């Protein structure tokens, strides 16, 4: 009871801080200095129509590399923690029903296509590698729901994951030699703003990120699904 009271006091204290922040908050009328720079220079400098993508992939590309690394680490640790070497051969499959099976056959190719579309068009439309990768992983999840005993090739998943990572870093290094710096997208021609083949290396990098994120999420899902039933 006393613990509950302490928790309540803590939540009320944090809540009053939040309330002060909320009532003292006035939305900006103009973009701040950083945002203004991105808004003014993205189209001319990087040729990307989606400014968020330009920030994520190029301006703050190093952070994104770190983020992908964090995701890779968490996927590996999930695999490590859950791996006991034994799959569950004695698991009895739960009948999933006609609707889910047929729906999966119909939907999974479409979901994968949508995922690829989202990350290939990351520099033009809302979306990008992380979103596209998550959509691809949702297709994998649907496959696992329809057939819980389905076994995914871990070597294939990790091959896609590692190759995408290696190429990502290599494109970044190419920027060091051919353009202005690490992960500079201007190693390829910028093209016309708004075209699919524009924004230099951004579509390439974001597609690699999409593959990598999709493979990482898929490996997390596969590790969770293949763990022995309790």
């Amino acid at each position: 009871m006393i613990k509950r009271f302490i928790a309540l006091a803590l939540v009320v204290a944090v809540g009053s801080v939040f309330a002060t922040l909320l009532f003292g908050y006035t939305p900006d009328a103009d973009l701040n200095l950083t945002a203004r720079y991105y808004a003014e220079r993205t189209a001319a400098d990087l040729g990307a129509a989606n400014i968020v993508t330009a920030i994520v992939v190029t301006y703050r590309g190093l952070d994104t590399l770190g983020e992908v690394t964090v995701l890779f680490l968490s996927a590996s640790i999930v695999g490590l923690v859950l791996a006991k070497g034994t799959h569950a051969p004695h698991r009895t499959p739960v009948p999933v029903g006609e609707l889910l099976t047929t729906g999966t056959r119909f939907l999974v190719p479409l979901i994968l296509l949508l995922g690829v579309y989202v990350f290939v068009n990351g520099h033009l439309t809302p979306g990008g590698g992380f979103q596209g990768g998550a959509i691809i992983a949702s297709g994998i999840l649907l496959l696992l729901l329809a057939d819980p005993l389905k076994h995914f090739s871990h070597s294939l998943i990790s091959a896609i994951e590692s190759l995408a990572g290696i190429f990502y870093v290599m494109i970044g290094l190419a920027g060091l030699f051919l353009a202005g710096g690490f992960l500079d997208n201007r190693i390829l021609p910028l093209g016309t703003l708004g075209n699919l083949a524009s924004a230099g290396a951004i579509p390439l990098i974001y597609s690699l990120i999409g593959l990598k994120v999709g493979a990482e999420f898929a490996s997390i899902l596969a590790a969770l699904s293949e763990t022995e039933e309790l």
Partner: protein
Amino acid sequence: MAHLAMATGFLLILIGAWGALTNRNLLRMIVAFTIADTGVNLVIIAVGYMRGRTAPIIDGAVSAADAVTRIIDPVPQALVLTAIVIGVGVTALMLAYTYRLFEKKRSLDIRDYTDLKG
């Protein structure tokens, strides 16, 4: 609009904090953390919102020249994009550890895990 989104975000953070502090079930605590995570993302997004402006994408509606006066702040969106992905990774990690803990002691109650208490 920004205030509404921000208030919702703060409320979600508080709900998450309350849930994480009062629940003893590990899975419920993970859900609480996820709710708080969503609240943080919502607050950051709300900070970048500006009335009467549009998404930071240059297309037919916004030309490159008038982008400065027409788009909302793209930086919080890029931050939240990162935060969501890291949140998924952290949640997956928590679930994996919980699974192992449950396997060890057949219990999801945090009070059963006092091994590190002196």
